[in-house]
């Protein structure tokens, strides 16, 4: 039987951050319409950042997202430091990386156990069933550890206060960090089992060829530094990426979409854990590579539904890296380098939990913002999510409407969209 004229709507997506929905229309087995609608109210960050001091910027951009505020602070301070020619001490670089590990841990744990995990057990929430309780309890443990580490280094886990242009306002005591080490090491051991657990989840067949984009780095799994890597093409400097992608506006969304410029077309691409793991597999420690191998996770991951597995891999990595950074930490007197604010322009990308987060700033001669561009990971993924939905719908056009609706929601959810983030985009100006 041919399904004809099906119209499927999700008015308000649940278990995602922010407000969005889905509209699907299937005609003669073809996806006639596929939209991820974003009705999150715009907040105009790029407008009110104009005229503000560079020093205010990390506090402001943090407020774009309550789940990954640190990512915004990182892209901001790196861009400013590039303009001013500031080089932070190596131990500050380590501490910033440790902060990022902490954010990956809490953000990934939130998504794995609260937002996406329940989908694989047919649950409406993480606390809907006693059977899920042991899984949730494990997740709470990881999440708490990430948040506690973030709070130790950043003052608090939501909108941390220690990250500033030039370094950190305060460095932690060695003994306070060392007190965390046993818990981090235990969590790392435990996280390897989470990779095995995630690999056994029932993933529907959903493989397709796609373009992966993430930072790549010669020596380490990328967080704060590197080149923009792309599965179709050579790595490029961060500033070239802004011209390689184009953002475009669609009427049904307050978030701009993005695509990579191909000959005449815009090609959707994917940022986030799957792309990072695929492009940086050799930077993962052998313990994690072994855990993936024995769990049957084959790289590259081509099934976007397996993002949860990629997140467990990165959660394990962040724990492993956190332990390493804590062990080699040496306390220093000053975590801050003085600088003179200058005018200029810079682009910087760091890897937010949900993927590459690009900031561009132009400052006047006393370091006040003249213009800026913020390209969050979720808006880069919107076009890709629609491609994913389209392929799903065309494979299963004959399926029952309710089932298609539920599956479509899951497809969006496995991308861990952060819609509050996505809505703050500006055209390059």
């Amino acid at each position, binding site marked *: 039987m041919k399904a004809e004229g099906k119209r499927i709507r999700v008015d308000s997506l649940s*278990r995602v951050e922010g407000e969005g929905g889905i509209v699907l229309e299937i005609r003669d087995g073809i996806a006639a319409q596929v939209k991820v609608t974003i009705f999150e109210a*715009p907040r105009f960050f790029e*407008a009110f950042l104009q005229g503000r001091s560079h020093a205010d910027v990390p506090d402001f951009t943090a407020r774009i997202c309550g789940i990954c505020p640190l990512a915004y602070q990182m892209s901001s301070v790196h861009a400013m430091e590039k303009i001013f020619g500031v080089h932070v001490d190596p131990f500050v670089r380590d501490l910033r990386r440790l902060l990022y590990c902490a954010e990956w841990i809490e953000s990934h744990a939130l998504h794995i156990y609260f937002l996406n995990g329940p989908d694989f057990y047919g649950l409406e929430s993480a606390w809907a069933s006693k059977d899920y309780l042991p899984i949730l309890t494990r997740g709470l443990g990881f999440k708490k550890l990430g948040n506690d580490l973030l709070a130790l280094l950043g003052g608090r*886990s939501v909108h941390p206060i220690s990250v500033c242009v030039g370094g950190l306002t305060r460095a932690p005591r060695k003994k306070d960090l060392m007190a965390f080490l046993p818990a981090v090491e235990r969590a790392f051991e435990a996280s390897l089992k989470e990779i095995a657990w995630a690999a056994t989840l029932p993933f529907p067949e959903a493989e397709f060829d796609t373009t992966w984009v993430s930072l790549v780095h010669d020596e380490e799994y990328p967080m704060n530094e590197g080149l923009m890597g792309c599965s179709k093409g050579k790595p490029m400097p961060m500033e070239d990426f802004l011209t390689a992608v184009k953002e475009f506006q669609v009427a049904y969304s307050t978030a701009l979409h993005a695509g990579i410029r191909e000959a005449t077309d815009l090609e959707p691409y994917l940022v986030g854990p799957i792309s990072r793991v695929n492009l940086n597999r050799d930077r993962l420690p052998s313990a994690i590579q072994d855990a993936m191998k024995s769990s049957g996770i084959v790289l590259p991951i081509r099934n976007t539904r397996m993002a949860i597995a990629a997140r467990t891999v990165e959660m394990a990595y962040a724990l492993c890296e956190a332990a390493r950074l804590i062990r080699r930490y040496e306390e220093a007197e000053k975590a801050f380098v003085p600088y003179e604010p200058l005018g200029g322009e810079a682009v910087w990308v760091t890897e937010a939990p949900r993927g590459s987060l690009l900031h561009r700033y132009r400052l006047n001669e006393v370091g006040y913002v003249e213009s800026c561009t913020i390209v969050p990971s979720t808006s880069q993924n919107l076009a890709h999510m629609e491609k994913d939905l389209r392929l799903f719908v065309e494979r299963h056009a004959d399926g029952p409407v309710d089932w298609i609706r539920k599956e479509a929601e899951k497809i969006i959810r496995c991308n861990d969209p952060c819609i509050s983030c996505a809505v*703050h985009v500006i055209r390059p100006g």
Partner: protein
Amino acid sequence: MKKPRIGVFKFTSCDGCQLSLLNMEDDLLGLVELFDVAYFREATDKPLKGTFDLALVEGSISTERQREEIVDVRDRSRVLITIGACAVSGGLQALRNWASLSSYTHLVYPKPEDVHALSTSTPISDHVYVDFELWGCPISMSALAETLTAFLLGRRPGIRGYSLCMECKRRGIPCLLVSRGEPCLGPITRAGCEALCPSYGRPCYGCFGPKDDANVESLMRHFQTMGLAAKECLALLDKMNSYTYRKAHLESRG
């Protein structure tokens, strides 16, 4: 006893304050035992239905649709508590209250005509009656726990309206304003963060908004004697609680 039905609602915001609920890792399982979590889009699929004993509202009102939705939420809720700077103060996005909307939409979107937003971002209490306000950007988890406990026990939350300086003194942190001449908003800012920024050696930037009867004008005058330009003073107020600091400023000018 029937568990109270709790609803968590989001308007214009970053999600950080409702995330604080999920970040109460040690208490979360107890929380879902004590409350019937009847609506919480970030965590459950449950559709919006029926009435609520307690509504926690995050975010400011910044679109026409939200203006209608908040009235509906109020209608459904016995007690309504706002959580965080966006909900109690309009948030950072309220900075557009001091500019023209079209200058903002043109700057951010290539097709501004497709963007529907009010020219202002305002606190929930400008639109409906609010039973209690929890300040902070983000709110503190201990204040949230105290508020939920107080609700269950049927008493007022024990949260003070005095200034941040009290917390700073209690922790024995040397005053940044007096000893280092840094422009700290502590004297006019509500306590609640345990003097977090001063403990990291940076002046308070006003996450918790103006304290009761804050003498903003006096502090601004002091900043000017320290050498700050009027514009720089205003920039200190124009952050997450800009809307309420500016109001308090006008009131303190008499």
